[in-house]
């Protein structure tokens, strides 16, 4: 496949924008999953409540 000069330039620019966007999106998904974090904190609260009730 052959591209002319401007097609090559625009393809390079489009690829760059795509890669920068993909990297930013990938970075934004790093770290703990929010749902898992919320579940874990709920689990912790429940355990604390149960242990308090058993102590009483």
């Amino acid at each position, binding site marked *: 496949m052959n591209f002319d000069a401007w097609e090559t330039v625009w393809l390079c620019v489009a690829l760059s924008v795509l*890669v920068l966007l993909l990297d930013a999106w990938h970075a934004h998904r*790093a770290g703990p999953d929010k749902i898992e*974090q919320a579940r874990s904190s709920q689990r912790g609260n429940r355990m604390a409540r149960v242990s308090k009730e058993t102590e009483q």
Partner: protein
Amino acid sequence: MFSQLASPPKFHALASWFWVWLLLAGVLFLGLGLYTGLFLAPVDVQQGEVYRAIYVHVPAAWMSMFLYLVACGYAMLNWIYRSDVSAVMMRALLPTGAWMTALALLTGALWGKPTWGAYWVWDARMTSELLLLFIYLGLIALGQLATDPSKADRVLAISLLIGAVNIPLIYLSVVFWNTLHQGYSVSMSGSRIHPEIATGMWLSVLGFWLICASTVLNRARRLLVQRRWQ
């Protein structure tokens, strides 16, 4: 000042504030660089319009090497201080470095076809850059192998420093070997690029630098939360 940056809560607060502003500034500078390069810069006498690929190819190639060197700096800090911030920064730099290396290779291949007649040749500069991509991918995989994060950090830091031998090899490949890839246009002694062409390139380089810094900080603050949470 630097010791304060090693404090995870302070680093998280600073990174959470900075990454948005760095991103906005980066988009602005990259937009300006691309506008200047694509619409205002004159046509190159030898290559014609296709030379305008430098406005994305050169920043991506420089970032691929620069980010590796910064990761090496954090690897050394991590080896000495074993801080969480240096560990997450070292890890956060790797994916962005890998993306930039892939981008440099892809845009270089697209540029190579009309100028050299081939998308790929086993030229010293291109082969050493491909090796850098494999090193990045290997390090990303290595960082996820060990279950003990501190042990993984140490292995990652040593591997990063060993892999750094490839960076001068990429940079000097056009001097050591007779390559199809052109030699230096910009060096410590100055630039051989015409100022009207160079302006857009420097703006694009600054834009790429700011966007990469923003992405790395955003990833690092999230990895830091994960590390403290687990």
